[in-house]
């Protein structure tokens, strides 16, 4: 009961790992897949150094169990660049001296990527500060990091990613003809057996895959492709 096979794609590559249920996604990435770019700091969701992208959404990989990542598309700092080239955000971090010890940097870069993607206009410095507020850096004093992200927001990378759109498209609006508490007659008396909601699963996967498709496009290069198809 305690070991589970988990299949996911990591940086576009399908992988299957067998993990105990207590293992965090961060530990699987680091110790099973040897993707040690993702750092583990506080292990309670405070420091942000373990931030990765799961199904197009920023995620603390220390607060997600590996077993919960079944079928997920995971992107880590290693997937942001190809070969030895730096991604535009990484390059701006280098130019601006936005890292010292480097421990927080992968989480910062991943967070910045999601922050900058899919926006119609570049964020203000205030918005960048807010966007990075969940990532703690003990070296730089944040100034150079904000400068680097601000500079990166001027790159073409911002629009093509279309990730905030993918977030929007994952909203699921209920259909009142579907069974649910609203389809019960009148007020629901306590303890009345309710069978309406059962056995309905598997909705919404399509929109997630949409987000994955766009993520794949985005990591293929900084080519502007406009907002992705089927966003609304």
């Amino acid at each position: 009961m305690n070991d589970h096979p988990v299949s996911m794609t990591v940086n576009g590559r399908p992988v299957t790992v067998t993990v105990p249920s207590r293992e965090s996604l961060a530990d699987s990435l680091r110790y099973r897949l040897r993707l040690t770019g993702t750092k583990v700091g506080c292990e309670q969701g405070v420091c942000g150094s373990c931030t990765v992208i799961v199904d197009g959404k920023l995620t603390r990989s220390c607060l997600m169990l590996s077993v919960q990542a079944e079928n997920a598309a995971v992107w880590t700092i290693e997937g942001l660049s190809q070969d030895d080239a730096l991604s535009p955000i990484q390059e701006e971090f280098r130019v601006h001296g936005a890292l010292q010890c480097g421990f927080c940097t992968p989480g910062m870069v991943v967070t910045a990527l999601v922050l900058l993607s899919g926006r119609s206009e570049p964020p203000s410095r205030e918005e960048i500060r807010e966007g990075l507020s969940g990532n703690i850096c003990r070296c730089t004093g944040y100034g150079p990091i904000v400068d680097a992200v601000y500079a990166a927001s001027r790159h073409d990378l911002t629009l093509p990613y279309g990730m905030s759109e993918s977030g929007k498209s994952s909203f699921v609006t209920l259909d009142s003809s579907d069974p649910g508490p609203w389809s019960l007659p009148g007020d629901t008396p306590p303890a009345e057996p309710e069978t309406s909601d059962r056995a309905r699963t598997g909705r919404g996967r399509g929109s997630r895959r949409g987000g994955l498709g766009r993520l794949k496009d985005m990591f293929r290069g900084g080519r502007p492709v406009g907002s992705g198809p089927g966003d609304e």
Partner: protein
Amino acid sequence: MKPPVFDYYRAASVDEALDVLDEREGARVIAGGQSLIPLMNLRLARPEALVDIGRLEHLRRVGVVDGSLYLGGLVTHATLCGHPAILRHAPLLAEAASHIGHQAIRERGTIGGSLAHGDPAAELIACCSALGASVYLESSSGCREVPAREFVQGPYSTAASHNEIVTWIRIPLADDRRVGFYEVAPRPGDFARVGAVWCSEPENDKSTVALFGSDCGHMSIELGGDGRAADVLDAVRASGRVQGGLVRVVEAAVKRSMPTEFHE
């Protein structure tokens, strides 16, 4: 730290999850895990088994039916911040959710999880109380609807028993409703020290103040009157349940209030 050993079940339906909860008394429900996993990593929580309901996609839905806004228990805080139906009919929830943690937390944390966790600093319970919402609790013996005000019974203590799952939240909509929100936290995204939610419905001749925060816990005060802002503070003082600085927090919530409209 790492969490203690536990068994993991991925539920494919609400029924399946309820079966596990019935079989194993030490089992707990996990969805986004943004409250439970930190507690497990700190070993403050040691469930013997986790039932993952995160794949029950039908509980991610949001919509208006018969004058009520229904939110599935798996609706994330990020969805609350941006879903068109919520921005239109319950902007209070969008405002409150934007104060929960940081983006990465909001993407996975769910409203059902926040309610079931019962953190005294949780914004959403206070909002649900003020809005007159109710919580649907499903167990193998059926489904019951509990008013949000009665749902919280103390810090980390709720009306849900261990074999029940928060499946839906229902928020009755009203014309001419005014809502306000204010919280004090050391930094944006931190747990609120104190916070207040105000909701007034002049047509129904009522207004409600709900307080939350790690310093004051949850408290919900129902006030009569026509819900005019000026009367609220007097009424709150007269209730004798709020004093000193907390009154100023309520005042700030009232001052920042915004009208919300509902036309079906």
